[in-house]
């Protein structure tokens, strides 16, 4: 089946074209069903390929055609099928399919229903291209393509101006990262003479650890990852991106696209381990982002914003894992996060749907019994993300925590704090939204239709069980995911391990249970504050304590960027437009144009229409050439 891998991205592309060309013709749910079936068939093929790879432990490159071939440049359009890419395939098509089905219910009746599904299918196509490409160029095409779709979907309800601004912000911030990525690709080509993963990683052995070239390249690639995966300093676009429809937030801004940066670094692990400085920077950026975003999440009042900051924080966690060399942990957390964060977003969407578009948690409460399925699945998601055993989040976080401890115990301490913050803001959200507060009248709410609740239930099951793939050896598990991904990461892990100290089983058990005890404390704390005391976040205009205000205002990142970059850029643009453009360039261009037009007008008199003159001109020309050639 591996040779048919091209079907996997092709089907969503066909779905996109089919819907895009019948934009006005399709009525009702037709386009949703087409889009979902395209992803479903892709999923089945991916599943078969995944099983083949899993059982055979082989990897394959499927070449479709030579794409650019000129002189020494030879870039082919080919796919790399290995453990890493098939794992991503499963997430993208699997979670993607569930979200598509959910969207049929969620987007029902929206005037842009067909447009929505065409964009979604296009997104899946590009995302698949990104993970399947066997060289950095194909990856970059996918990378840019998902950025475009993200832009289109954030600004999906384009009639509201702030949505367009959010879309623009996401696009521009991503462009900054993309520039780094692109420069990294150029440098890779310059130093390696190829863009193929296999070729580059094979040659990478010639470089010593700490080689400055590799450091620059990896830093540039990391800049790309920062933009796409919303890390400090380029993370402010992700919370704004919540302006898009909720399924978009679930698919693009939680489960798949934002993890592209993680995937890219995991894919390039051979390069990154050669640069300890880059890895340290990655770990620091990751943990800082995780900490700050977690802090901001605690003070937010919009249900989707809380989840958005939570995503930023979890992505930071994954970067920490990459930085400390726990590549498997990063990929494992990416997987479980895809399940429970998609679940949380979809459940939040279900809440919003039930309340006819309300997103402010201060206006919610007591929904526990009104929308029981949504409540129950949200509860599972919350437990999973909080890292309570035996739910999946516990195992994936544990893998990262152990990795962090092995590298540096300070990382471990901060990571535990972040993890406790996660527990706090998630339970805060849960209690405020679903527990009843007596001083409020009952909200009118209705449970979502089946095609929305069934994906929720499937994702809930996955959120519970996915941890089984990573049960550590201490518990008698056999670390399925670690073994599965080992062909990709072993070499790099060995290089990292030289510096790390091995920890004993007892320490490992201790490290596992200390956080768990604290987690339960935090859960109770949240319960005490938000259920017992019925505390509610202050209204927007109310004065807050200093500390809480800073986090509520998102650490003033937007304001700082506005003053530092946006305003000067606008001022510069004004200057360039009014002075340089209008007064200098325009005038020059117009004069050049006038010159050309005038010359044209003047010399056309040569074209008299008289044959005699034409023949005469030919003879004269020959004579002139002769003079030129013979005598000069």
């Amino acid at each position, binding site marked *: 089946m591996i040779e048919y891998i091209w079907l996997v991205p092709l089907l969503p592309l066909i779905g996109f074209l089919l819907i895009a060309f019948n934009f006005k013709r399709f009525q009702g749910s037709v386009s949703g069903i087409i889009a979902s079936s395209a992803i479903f068939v892709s999923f089945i093929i991916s599943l078969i390929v995944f099983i083949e790879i899993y059982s055979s432990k082989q990897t394959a490159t499927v070449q479709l055609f030579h794409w650019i071939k000129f002189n020494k440049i030879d870039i082919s359009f080919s796919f790399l099928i290995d453990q890493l890419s098939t794992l991503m395939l499963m997430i993208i098509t699997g979670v993607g399919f569930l979200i598509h089905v959910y969207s049929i219910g969620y987007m029902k009746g929206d005037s842009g229903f067909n447009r929505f599904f065409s964009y979604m299918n296009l997104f899946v196509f590009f995302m698949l291209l990104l993970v399947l490409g066997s060289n950095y160029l194909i990856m970059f095409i996918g990378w840019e393509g998902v950025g475009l779709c993200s832009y289109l979907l954030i600004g999906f309800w384009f009639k509201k101006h702030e949505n367009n601004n959010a879309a623009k912000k996401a696009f521009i911030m991503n462009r900054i990262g993309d520039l780094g990525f692109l420069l990294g690709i150029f440098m890779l080509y310059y130093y390696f003479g190829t863009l193929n993963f296999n070729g580059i990683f094979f040659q990478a052995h010639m470089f010593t650890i700490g080689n400055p070239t590799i450091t620059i390249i990896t830093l540039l690639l990391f800049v790309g990852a920062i933009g796409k995966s919303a890390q400090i300093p380029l993370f402010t676009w992700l919370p704004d991106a919540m302006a898009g429809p909720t399924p978009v937030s679930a698919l693009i801004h939680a489960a798949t696209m934002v993890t592209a940066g993680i995937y890219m670094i995991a894919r390039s692990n051979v390069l990154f381990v050669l640069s300890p400085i880059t890895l340290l920077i990655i770990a620091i950026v990751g943990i800082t982002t995780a900490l700050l975003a977690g802090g901001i999440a605690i003070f937010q009042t919009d249900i989707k914003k809380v989840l958005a900051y939570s995503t930023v924080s979890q992505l930071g966690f994954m970067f920490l894992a990459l930085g400390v060399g726990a590549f498997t942990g990063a990929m494992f957390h990416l997987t479980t996060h895809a399940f429970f964060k998609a679940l949380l977003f979809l459940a939040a969407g279900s809440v919003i749907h039930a309340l006819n578009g309300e997103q402010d948690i201060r206006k919610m409460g007591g929904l526990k019994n009104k929308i029981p399925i949504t409540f129950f699945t949200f509860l599972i998601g919350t437990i999973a993300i909080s890292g309570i055993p035996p739910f999946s989040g516990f195992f994936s976080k544990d893998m990262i925590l152990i990795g962090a401890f092995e590298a540096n115990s300070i990382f471990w301490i901060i990571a535990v704090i972040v993890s406790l913050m996660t527990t706090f803001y998630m339970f805060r959200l849960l209690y405020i939204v679903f527990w009843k507060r007596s001083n409020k009248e009952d909200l009118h709410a209705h449970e979502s239709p089946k095609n929305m609740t069934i994906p929720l239930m499937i994702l809930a099951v996955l959120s519970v069980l996915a941890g089984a793939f990573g049960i550590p050896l201490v518990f008698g598990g056999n670390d399925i995911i670690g073994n599965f991904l080992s062909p990709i990461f072993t070499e790099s892990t060995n290089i990292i391990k030289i510096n790390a100290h091995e920890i004993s089983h007892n320490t490992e058990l201790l490290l596992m249970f200390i956080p768990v005890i604290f987690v339960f404390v935090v859960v109770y704390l949240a319960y005490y504050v938000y259920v017992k005391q019925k505390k509610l976040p202050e209204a927007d205009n109310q004065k807050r304590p200093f500390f809480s205000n800073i986090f509520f205002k998102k650490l003033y990142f937007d304001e700082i960027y506005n003053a530092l970059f946006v305003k000067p850029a606008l001022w510069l643009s004004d200057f360039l437009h009014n002075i340089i453009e209008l007064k200098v360039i325009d005038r020059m261009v117009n004069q050049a144009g006038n010159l050309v037009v005038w010359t044209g007008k003047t010399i056309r008199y040569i074209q008299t229409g008289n044959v005699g003159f*034409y023949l005469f001109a*030919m003879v004269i020309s020959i004579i002139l050439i002769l003079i030129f050639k013979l005598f000069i």
Partner: protein
Amino acid sequence: MRLENFLIMRQELLLTLVALIVLIADLAIKDDKKRIVIPISIVLFFLVTVAGFIPASEGILFGGMYKSTALTILMKNILNVGVLIVFIQSVTWLKRDDLQNKISEYFILIVSTLIGMNFMISSGDFLMFYLGLETATIPIAALAAYEKFKAKSAEAGIKLILSSALSSGILLYGLSMIYGTTGSIYFADVAASFGNTPLHVLAFIFFFAGMAFKISLVPFHLWTADVYEGAPINVTSYLSVISKGAAVFIFTIILYTVFSQIAYLWRELLVIISLLTMTVGNLFAIRQQNLKRFLAFSSIAQAGFILLGILDGSVLGMTSTVYFVMIYIFSNLGAFGVVAAVSNMTNKENMDDYNGFYRTNPKLSLVMMLSLFSLAGIPPVAGFFGKFFLFTAAAHQGYYMLVLVAVLNATISLYYYLLLIKAMFINTSDNPIARINSDFSTKLGLIICVVGIFVIGFASPLYELIRSLSFGF
């Protein structure tokens, strides 16, 4: 003659057969049913085109007068495909009542010129070359005057025959001097003894002038605009694409094989002529209102670009030239196809008439836009790669300034192509061209062009194929 020899020159023989069959069919068919000639001719020609792709051995015939190589076969195939598109695009026009009795003439004349071109491309000596050239030229004058009751058409025919007579005379004079000084007309012998004496240079320049006329290079281009405008539009597209393409092919072959000794001489000449051709072609194109004249000057400018590839003188030059001509055929026929479809339905040929064209005919507008983008060389359509390789070839020889001017010229050309695109998409009109219900043949012709424009752009194996075949030179 043995069977293999037939196979070596099968394309010429099959074309002759087609011409004869059409002639006989025309005699056999009653006057009121003449239209049946159209499908017969096209199907026959289609079969010949397909037959051209059957692999055949290379070979030399008539003691070296005729030679067939993989590259010449490819060139002939490219021309065949182009002519097939021209034929398909002509169907609507040929169905007009006043042309009823002359349908077969059109096919016979075009096939005859194509036979001439094929012999010209395969020629191994100057005699065969000259015979082919004349066979390829004289019937075109008749074609240009095809609608002889229209003053402009008749005038076009006369102008073409007069100026081509002069150019042929000059060319023949040059050839006679070559024979006089080297004692041979065979390419191989001439190449061996050709030097840098003044007489040789004189002979070469006469030859060059004759070819420059055919490719309508500045300053030998003056006939072009009048003839292109006067001739029926489908003939114009044939002239500007196939006729020019064939001349470029043989010109390149002869320069590379016969005159390779004096490459430094013609390279300088080509640089100057190329500059002149691009610039003058573009400057004239800007001012044109009539789309046939517009495309005529645009095709002159394109010929200037082609010279950039030719002047390289190596495999790279041959490859980029053939590759570009192939792309040029699809792009230009796409543009001409739309103009022909509109002109045949409404008789409107001016740029102003196209105001608001997109609103009434979105599909035709898109085809036009794609073709113009390809002519202008905008990625990702094929034209970009065509120009890219031409520029590479010139840069390969170190003519960076020339490439710079060429890029500037490409920008100017983009300006006037955009003028037409602006007219179609942005300008509004109270009286736009009504919706055109194009028939099957028009659609088919345009679809082939669009597919060509895209496929060639994305398929680098084609370039590789041409490159591998070009090593024969």
